[in-house]
């Protein structure tokens, strides 16, 4: 099953139904579990929500299977760490 998730749509739903991002996340995950689907389909959305600070580390660990949650938390951390030093590398290598 292939699902494309539109982040603008999620933001719209949060506003329209007056849901908190974590309530929306819970509803989405329950729906996915009921359909015997896997959380992997939601990973890009969950990652975006986590990166934007819409859901916390704790919420991820509660509502998402632990391996998926840890992938998002640890992967995000490594990406952020890399971004912090990239500017220095570009300054040295490209002079920009």
């Amino acid at each position, binding site marked *: 099953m292939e699902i494309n*998730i539109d982040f603008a749509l999620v933001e719209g739903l949060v506003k329209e139904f007056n849901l908190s991002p974590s309530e929306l996340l819970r509803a989405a995950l329950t729906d996915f579990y009921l359909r015997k689907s896997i959380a*992997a389909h939601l990973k890009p959305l969950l990652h975006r929500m986590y990166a934007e600070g819409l859901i916390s580390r704790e919420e991820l660990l509660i509502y998402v299977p632990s391996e998926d949650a840890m*992938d998002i938390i640890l*992967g995000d951390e*490594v*990406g952020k760490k890399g*971004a912090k030093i990239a500017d220095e590398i570009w300054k040295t290598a490209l002079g920009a």
Partner: protein
Amino acid sequence: MKSGKQPLVLDSSTLIALIKGKLLPHPALEQHFQWIIPALVYEEITRVPTPVTRTIEQLVQEGKVNVYSLDEDVRREIQAISSREKLGVGEISCCFVAEALNIGFFLCDDHKFIRRLSKIKEPRVANKVPLGFAFILATLFKMHHLDEETLKELFHRIVNENNWKNSIVEISNRRFLFDTLGIWVG
């Protein structure tokens, strides 16, 4: 091995991904960067002949990729750390080469290494920052060799070709692009 260019130490994961994505060799990058792989990585990759390994051998022969040798006692130390920390010798040797070249990062897209990073006790490994393939995409974007659409296309192609869809590797590279370029590759 001094050339005035910024050295980039590569683990096999990123090296193979960049070759498959046709980003290595790249004339624009070669002007500013020097590609380096530890001898242990080279030996590991070329053990099994494939079209990609043949390309790597050719790049080494042409001097486009440099192989960095480490002394026998350093190799033994790397093996010991590998068993202790449950990490591949390739990633550890990248950290040692980066240390020898006085740089604080190396290029790596190994999911096991990224997962274990926060648990690594060996300081010569723990203090190195792994950058993924997205660093190369972002560099080419900054040099105006890629537009946003092509960058996203290449990101997805590399992720799919290397079976990194929904993996920690995709997540770390996506966050890297978001923080450095403000581009979200969903």
